[in-house]
């Protein structure tokens, strides 16, 4: 018995065939994973199931019955719920209000907040989805926001729950919690569609896997009878190196240094507390830590986006404290930000404007006071070729690229500025295995060209495989510095939860 059948779905966007006769069958009560490269068409397929897009061709069956889903309202009626890749929450409303929005309980003419709170608390308890019902969404962690999204679907009585890359923004602990919840939902008879780029997650949680590539289904596998290598091969069409190996490379002199840096967060609390470190040419310094321990503020301060309360920054020995982002870029700093939609690119701009941002005034792209569009187009074509951005369409709008391809645009732009010092935050968040391999290789290539690199990542694996030195951050302070070959994941894990190196060593 299939809960969901999507048969021969075709969906076209201007210049892109996003779904090319895709057929997906999902058994009732199972966890079905969908994997595929960035831009393979996974989100597009799911958006059609949820009624946000409409298929150009093909049919959809729910529990064996043919349905036409005109909009989310129809999808909800069919018992479908969706947690989007980018959360769909109203920041200024409370958790309870967000959950019931659109299907609010009523008492006379009034909105029945009491009942809303009660129902949310009941669902929260039943499935172990811990949330603070009265907190505003803007004040809660990403992990909790995701639980709110799941409760939203359950509140509407969803039997089929779509989770589009739910783990991309979670810490490893939060991922485990999510999996526990998913198992509970499954044992309750719910059907779950799970999209992820992390193959070990797919192996751990799913019953079956559908693999997509360039808008087509390339394979459907029973999870228990496959392995990550095989899945990766179906995805990319070749063998992929799942972890890169780095050659020895002798670091040179110091290119960037911070001394006693203190930075405050948006609420005015100290987020970075007396942090000092240096980065040498040809060296990758990794900053590990659980999200929200001051990494974001540290990066913003270093790149000139946030005010420095006290302390100093030196670029090639020169004091650059208080420099603007443009001044820092002119010194030779580049920045791949953690939130590509907020700081990385402009959704409404075409690819060709997105890739010249920050360098738009340079003679490379101008003709006197005007932009030279011919040069810009040519440059964009080359960049998209070199960094394998898909679709290869220079007029494609920033917001219409898939998440992974947005990232490649930003990475390409920043690397092409030929920096001396590169700040990279969460460079592979939401990327497919092939793209991760590609970006890791790019970062290592920069290192060989003697660029100093500061890498901030929540992925310990990434930190371990790329860094020459690892700094661990906890509550705004550096807990200690270790070399990847001289430490263990456990030791770094201890430091990430607030133990200083000496304590962690003692055990």
């Amino acid at each position, binding site marked *: 018995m299939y809960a969901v059948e999507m048969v021969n779905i075709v969906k076209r966007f201007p210049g892109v065939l996003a779904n090319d006769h895709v057929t997906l069958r999902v058994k009732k009560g199972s966890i079905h994973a969908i994997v595929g490269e960035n831009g393979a068409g996974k989100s597009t397929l799911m958006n059609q199931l949820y009624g946000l897009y409409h298929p150009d061709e093909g049919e959809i069956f729910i529990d064996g019955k043919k349905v036409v889903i005109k909009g*989310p309202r129809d999808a909800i009626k069919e018992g479908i719920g969706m947690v989007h890749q980018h959360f769909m*929450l109203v920041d*200024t*409303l409370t958790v309870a209000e967000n959950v019931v*929005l659109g299907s*609010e309980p009523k008492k006379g003419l009034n909105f029945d907040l009491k009942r809303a709170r009660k129902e949310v608390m009941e669902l929260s308890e039943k499935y172990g989805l811990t949330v603070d019902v009265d907190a505003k969404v803007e004040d809660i962690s990403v992990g909790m926001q995701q639980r709110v999204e799941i409760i939203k679907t359950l509140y509407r009585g969803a039997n089929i729950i779509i989770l589009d890359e739910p783990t991309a923004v979670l810490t490893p602990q939060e991922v485990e919690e999510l999996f526990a919840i998913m198992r509970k939902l499954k044992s309750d008879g719910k059907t779950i569609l799970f999209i992820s780029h992390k193959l070990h997650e797919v192996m751990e949680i799913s019953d079956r896997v559908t693999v997509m590539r360039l808008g087509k289904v390339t394979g459907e596998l029973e999870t228990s009878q496959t392995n990550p290598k095989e899945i990766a091969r179906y995805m990319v069409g070749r063998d992929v190196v799942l972890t890169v190996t780095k050659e020895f490379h002798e670091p040179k002199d110091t290119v960037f240094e911070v001394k006693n840096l203190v930075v405050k967060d948006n609420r005015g609390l100290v987020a970075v507390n007396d942090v000092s470190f240096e980065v040498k040419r040809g060296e990758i310094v990794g900053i590990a830590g659980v999200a929200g321990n001051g990494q974001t503020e540290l990066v913003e301060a270093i790149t000139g986006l946030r005010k420095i309360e006290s302390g100093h920054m030196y670029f090639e020995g020169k004091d650059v404290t208080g420099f603007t982002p443009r001044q820092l870029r002119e010194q030779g700093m580049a920045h791949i930000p953690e939130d590509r939609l907020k700081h990385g690119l402009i959704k409404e701009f075409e690819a060709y404007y997105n890739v010249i941002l920050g360098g738009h005034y340079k003679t490379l792209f101008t003709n006197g006071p005007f932009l030279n569009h011919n040069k810009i187009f040519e440059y964009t074509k080359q960049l998209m070729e070199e960094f394998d951005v898909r679709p290869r369409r220079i007029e494609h709008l920033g917001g219409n690229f898939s998440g992974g391809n947005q990232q490649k645009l930003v990475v390409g732009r920043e690397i092409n500025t030929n920096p001396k010092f590169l700040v990279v935050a969460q460079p592979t968040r939401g990327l497919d295995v092939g793209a991760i391999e590609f970006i890791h290789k790019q970062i290592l290539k920069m290192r060989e060209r003697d660029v100093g690199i500061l890498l901030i990542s929540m992925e310990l694996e990434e930190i371990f495989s790329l860094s020459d030195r690892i700094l661990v951050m906890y509550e705004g302070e550096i807990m200690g510095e270790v070399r990847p070959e001289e430490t263990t994941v456990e030791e770094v894990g201890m430091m990430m939860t607030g133990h200083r190196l000496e304590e962690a060593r003692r055990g």
Partner: protein
Amino acid sequence: MRIVEAIFLVFINPLFYKIALTAATPLIFASLGGVYSEITGVVNIALEGIMLLGAFTSVVFTWLTGNVWIGVLMAVVSGVALAWLHAWGSIKWAGNQVVLGTALILIAQGITGFLMEPIFGKPGQTDFVGKVEEIKIPGIAEIPFIGKVIGEISPFVYMAFAAVAFSWWLIYKTNLGLRMRSVGENPEAADTLGINVYGIRYFGVLMSGVWAGLAGAYLSVGEVGLFKELMSGGRGFIALAAMILGKYNPVGALLASLLFGASTAFANQMQSSSLIHVSDTVKPLFDMIPFILTIIVVAGFVGKSRPPKADGVPYEKGA
């Protein structure tokens, strides 16, 4: 020291408070209009034009029918009509809301100016056509001081306070209000929950026509009983400032409107103070006080008062 004494005398004079209330009344209505529109995500600077048209329509229909309340009703109808144009252009066609609003102000000024001759036979100003009577509330009128302030006052003042209470309830206590706020903050999220984003935005904008229309009716048949060209005199913009200062909340907008009303009353009373001599050439400077206050408020508070995140951003659905 005469200045200090003059200021002191203004503040102990009940007339100051009465003028403050009546000057605040159109601002309360109009800023409420702003709140309805902007919390659903549509910037509405057309308030100024809607007020002007409302003021004109109410005079025309009062003159035609002899009944001021029919005049008031028609002011609301004309306000909704103009607001509908704004909604249609900015929601259906995703037009630039500031440009549209500006165009609507010019249209309102054009229509009212043009129709003066054919309807009333002369430009500039109409004759007195009738006025909504002040109401006297027995019991209150006899109380010292307070009786002099609100004992005998236009019913519009009471209506304004009632409108604020109603709006606060609607926006913060009902399902519709919750949806309005969600649509102004994150229309995409609302859409994924099956909420009709366009419908809610239409409602918000049309309601702004209701309130701004009433504000206009008050200016003409509510206060003076006649229409003068351009008589809204920038109050639509002050109302927007009140809305911002009031953090897009009906009660906040009320308090901010009262502040602006008080500044108008203050300017008015100082000019006629017998203690300080204000020459006629200087008098217009006093009339600028509310506008100067507006600049201070907008410059000083805009950063702190956070507009709805999707305010002014047209919503366009996916394919």
